[in-house]
C-alpha cells in the first residue's frame, strides 16, 4: 500500500461507494433530530453494509442483514418511535459532561491503542501482516452460501444455535412482561377475580385458593393433578 497509489479496480470503486454510503448513513443516524429520519438513515446504512457483505462473498449474511436488520428490527424501532415520537429541543446532553469527557478520553485511548496495533502489524513480515496486507483471494467452493454456512451452523455450532434460540424466547417473554402496563396487569387480575366469583356462585361446593387452584376442606391445596 505504501508504494504509491493503489491500482483503481472495480472492487475498490464499489467498496468506496458502499463505504461512503455506510459512513454517511451512520453519521445521519446519530445527528438527526427527528427519530424517524434517524431510523431511515440506519436502514440505508444497513443496505450499504449488506452490499459490502455481498462483495466479500458473505451472501447468506447479506440476505440476513436485509431481512432481519433492515426488515424486522427496524420495523420494531419504527413502531416504538411512533409510540414515543417527540422531537428533541436539545439534541446532545451535556449534563455530567465531565464524567463523559473522561469516558470519551478513555474509550478514545483504547481505540487508539487497538488501531495502532493493527496499523503496526500491517507492516510486519509475519502471517498477521500478510493477512492484513494481502488482497482477498478466491474463497473455497461454497463459501458464504446458505448451504455452506448452514452446514457449519448445524454441525459445529449446534449448541450455540440452540442457546441463541432460547435467548430469543427469553427476550420475547421478557419484552412482553417489561412493556406490560399496570393497567393491563390490573385488568388481568380483575378478570381472574371475576372468574373466581362466577365459579363460587355456580359451584359453591368447590372452594378455590386465591391463586385459582381448588382447595380441600382445610383450605389447603388439593392433592392430585390440578
Amino acid at each position, binding site marked *: 500500500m505504501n508504494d504509491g497509489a493503489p491500482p483503481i479496480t472495480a472492487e475498490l470503486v464499489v467498496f468506496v461507494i458502499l463505504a461512503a454510503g455506510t459512513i454517511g448513513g451512520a453519521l445521519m443516524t446519530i445527528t438527526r433530530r427527528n427519530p424517524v429520519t434517524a431510523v431511515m438513515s440506519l436502514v440505508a446504512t444497513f443496505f450499504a453494509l449488506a452490499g459490502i457483505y455481498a462483495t466479500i462473498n458473505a451472501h447468506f449474511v447479506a440476505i*440476513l442483514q436485509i431481512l432481519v436488520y433492515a426488515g424486522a428490527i427496524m420495523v420494531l424501532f419504527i413502531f416504538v418511535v411512533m409510540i414515543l415520537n417527540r422531537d428533541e429541543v436539545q439534541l446532545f446532553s451535556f449534563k455530567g459532561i465531565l464524567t463523559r469527557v473522561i469516558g470519551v478520553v478513555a474509550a478514545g485511548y483504547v481505540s487508539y491503542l487497538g488501531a495502532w496495533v493493527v496499523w503496526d502489524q500491517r507492516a510486519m513480515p509475519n502471517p498477521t501482516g500478510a493477512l492484513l496486507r494481502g488482497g482477498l483471494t478466491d474463497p473455497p467452493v461454497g463459501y*458464504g452460501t446458505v448451504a455452506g454456512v448452514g452446514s457449519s451452523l448445524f454441525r459445529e455450532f449446534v449448541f450455540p444455535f440452540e442457546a441463541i434460540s432460547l435467548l430469543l424466547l427469553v427476550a420475547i417473554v421478557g419484552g412482553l412482561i417489561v412493556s406490560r402496563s399496570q393497567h393491563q396487569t390490573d385488568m388481568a387480575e380483575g378478570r381472574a377475580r371475576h372468574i373466581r366469583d362466577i365459579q363460587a356462585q355456580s359451584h359453591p361446593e368447590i372452594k378455590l385458593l386465591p391463586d385459582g387452584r381448588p382447595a380441600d376442606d382445610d383450605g389447603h391445596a388439593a392433592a392430585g393433578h390440578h
Partner: protein
Amino acid sequence: MPTFNYLILSFILFLIGTTGVILRRNALIVLMSIELQLNAGNLAFLAFARALGDQKGNVFTFFVIALAAAEAAVGLAILVGIFRTRQTVNLDEVTLMKR
C-alpha cells in the same frame, strides 16, 4: 483489496456508534448507535472470515444478528415501560436512582 480497508471502515463505524452512545440524549438513538457498533463488529468478523477463507466468521455474524434482535426487543420494551411511568425517554432525565 487488502483486508485492512474493511477494518478501517469497521473502526470508523464503531467510533460513530460510540459517539452516539455517549453523547445522544434520546434513548432510542442510543439503541440505534448500539446497533451500529454491533454492525461494525460484524464487518470485522466477515472481513477476517473472508481473508482466512473460514466460514466460522459468518456463523458468528449470524449469532450477533440474533443477539441484536433480542437486545432490540428487550431494550425497546424497557423504553416503552420508562415512557409510561415518566413520560420521557431522555437519558439525563431518568435519574430515579440518583437520589
